[in-house]
């Protein structure tokens, strides 16, 4: 997936320590995965405050369920499933999500940042209009750069379903972004 072998080994040790109730291990696990969790939440919700809620829920679930993790699946897949479920739970809770504001903290100039923000907002708004199952596939593909097989494992659906959802999403995005940035 995204993590290399030494990182995975480190994760395994941290998970075992976390299961024994080691708070420092949880902090280390949090540091390793916080950007991943928050990014998915933000790209899915389009709202930084909602993304914080989702990320918080995800880490609290991780803390309460870490004892149930037996290592049959990869930890990252397990964590991705927690984030995906938190995103969908928040969506079902019926909160209205607003399009996202400025996100990227970079060393760009003010003008570059303004231009980038405009493009980013535009793309985010178009992605936000996708139905949740298409949006999640797009986010896992482009935010996390996961393969079709990995997305299928996380979402618990066949690889063919992932491919067809991505295909549908691409067509919609292309049509909606045509003339703007594509």
């Amino acid at each position, binding site marked *: 997936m995204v993590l290399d072998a030494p990182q995975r080994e480190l994760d395994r040790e941290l998970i075992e320590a976390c299961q024994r109730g080691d708070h420092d291990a949880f902090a280390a696990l949090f540091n390793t995965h916080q950007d991943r*969790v*928050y990014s998915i939440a933000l790209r899915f919700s389009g709202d930084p405050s909602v993304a914080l809620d989702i990320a918080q829920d995800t880490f609290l679930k991780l803390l309460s369920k870490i004892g149930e993790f037996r290592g049959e699946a990869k930890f990252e897949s397990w964590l991705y499933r927690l984030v995906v479920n938190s995103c969908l739970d928040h969506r079902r809770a019926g909160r209205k999500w607003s399009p996202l504001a400025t996100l990227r903290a970079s060393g760009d100039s003010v003008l570059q940042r303004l231009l980038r923000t405009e493009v980013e907002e535009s793309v985010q708004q178009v992605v936000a209009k996708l139905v949740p199952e298409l949006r999640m596939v797009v986010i896992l593909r482009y935010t996390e750069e996961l393969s079709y097989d990995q997305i299928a494992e996380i979402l618990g659906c066949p690889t063919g379903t992932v491919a067809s959802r991505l295909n549908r999403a691409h067509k919609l995005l*292309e049509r909606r972004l045509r003339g703007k940035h*594509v």
Partner: protein
Amino acid sequence: MSKALETLLHEELGRVQSPTQLWDRVQLPRTPCPAASLRLAWAAALLVVSAVGLHTFLKNEAMRSPGVVRLQAACQLCHSGEDLQAVTLRGVY
């Protein structure tokens, strides 16, 4: 799908840095919630009431036992009119 769209999505939907307040928010629920404190207070109160009740019951049982009554009656022969409850109880316990 066009290459341009793929590039655009990779660039614009990339990972972002999580805000620092996320850790604080994950930490907060570690403090006991009001409901848990309330349950703890109820349990403590119930324990105190049970202890007091049991103590009173045992004390009354001791007072009612035939041995104590006979002892008090014997003592009253020499100490009539005196309060012998404390003395006899100490003797029984």
